[in-house]
């Protein structure tokens, strides 16, 4: 076992080592802009003694035998540079990296990249995508990663779920947030991140999403015979009928409809764009299963 102290400075990587039986350490240094691309911005040993070195250009790592390997950009390479923090898994060979624009996971040659509001605490391109610090722990036997950003904390963890659990999760979002005249519509938020500020939108894909939702409920009913699935399918079908009927031409689908005013007494629809092959496809898909 070798005791090692690795030290990063703007110009060099220093490495002090004491081999078993040695009374004094040996040291090596490696110049920045040589084997290492740029000023070191983070260092981390993993449990195997591999030293990970981050900088703005690449992730380098140095094996215990002092050989280097560099992973830069390009096909199969690091998704983004400007590394700010490195953490290593306690239970696998995974390496987690924070950058000025998102989080990355490296595992035996495979990269995953996490960025934007799905994973971090800000809108795309906001300061919340910049990672200040990162630590890797364990949760449910898998990696648990806590990162701090310009706008808060984000916790990455892994969930084992069944397809039924996944479907149930998304099902609970459809009715309260996406039902517009039976159409499965897009929804926006007046205040970023505040689900209570949602508003329904009209888009040229209303027919497409509704057709897909109708197909999903047809499949759900075929498998489960759950009356709720049939109910949902009926609602979606009525939405598609609306798209068909509002044009006044049988068989000619509108892509979307929009209420002219908020008055409940008289609803007048504007036809946005007609003719949707996708919608027709899912429409007939539905009838196949019923």
């Amino acid at each position, binding site marked *: 076992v070798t005791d090692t102290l690795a*030290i990063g400075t703007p*110009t060099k990587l220093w490495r002090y080592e004491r081999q078993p039986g040695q009374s004094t350490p040996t040291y090596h240094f490696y110049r920045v802009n040589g084997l290492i691309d740029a000023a070191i911005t983070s260092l981390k*040993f993993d449990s195997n003694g591999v030293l990970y070195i981050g900088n703005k250009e690449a992730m380098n790592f140095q094996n215990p035998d002092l050989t280097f390997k560099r992973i830069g950009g390009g096909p199969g390479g690091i998704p983004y540079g400007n590394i700010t923090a490195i953490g290593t898994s306690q239970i696998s060979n995974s390496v987690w990296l924070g950058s000025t624009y998102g989080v990355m996971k490296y595992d035996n040659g495979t990269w995953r990249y996490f960025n934007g509001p799905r994973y971090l*605490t800000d809108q795309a391109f906001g300061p919340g995508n910049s990672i200040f*610090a990162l630590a890797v722990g364990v949760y449910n036997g898998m990696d648990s990663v806590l990162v701090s950003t310009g*706008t*808060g904390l984000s916790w990455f963890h892994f969930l084992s779920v*069944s397809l039924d659990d996944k479907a149930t999760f998304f099902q609970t979002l459809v009715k309260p947030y996406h039902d517009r005249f039976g159409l499965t519509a897009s929804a926006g938020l007046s205040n970023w991140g505040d689900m209570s500020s949602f508003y329904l939108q009209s888009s040229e894909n209303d027919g497409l999403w509704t057709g897909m939702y109708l197909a999903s409920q047809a499949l759900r009913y075929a498998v489960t015979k759950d009356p709720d699935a049939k109910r949902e399918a009926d609602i979606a079908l009525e939405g598609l009928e609306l798209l068909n009927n509002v044009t006044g031409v049988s068989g000619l689908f509108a892509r979307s409809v929009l209420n002219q005013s908020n008055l409940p007494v008289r609803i007048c629809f504007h036809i946005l764009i007609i003719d949707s092959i996708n919608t027709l496809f899912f429409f007939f898909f539905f009838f196949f299963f019923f």
Partner: protein
Amino acid sequence: MTIIYVFASNVLTKNLLGNAETQIVSSSGSTDFFLVTSEGLYVFNPGRGSTPLLIRNFPSLQKISVHPSDSSKIVLAGSSRLDVCKHLNTDLLFCNRFSLPTNDPVTALKYAGDGSIYVATNKLYGMSDQGPKVFPMLAEVRYFELSSAISPLPTSLTQLFWMENIIRQTLQQLIGLL
């Protein structure tokens, strides 16, 4: 069929953490995270759905390090201050406070397996029982790391960084308190 998702929760806003950049560390064998903020040290366990808890008021806190094999031992460093602590449970921390010989920002800190404490400022500042020393060859240290197999350090490094006796005394005092 079971699938595995990467799920991310945005757990709190920066206002709760003060306006400093934070350092985060996890402790081996625990699901806790320690958070360094401009107010002091927080402990946080997102898996339990708790909110971060301030366990050490330390306004200039800059770095933390957890002992690699005993997560109850932690060391904290800030401007001219070093706290060597024992974390007894989720919200209880006993610390002994020492002075650092510099006001310069602490850029890196490490608790080694043998009980030694490594401290870096803009220069690699060593702590020893003979007083502070500077290793001029290693100026402008930004980061350093220890392999996990650290055992008692070589003499030259020991003279630079050694605080083991101080830590032992501290822990003995803590044990006495208990």
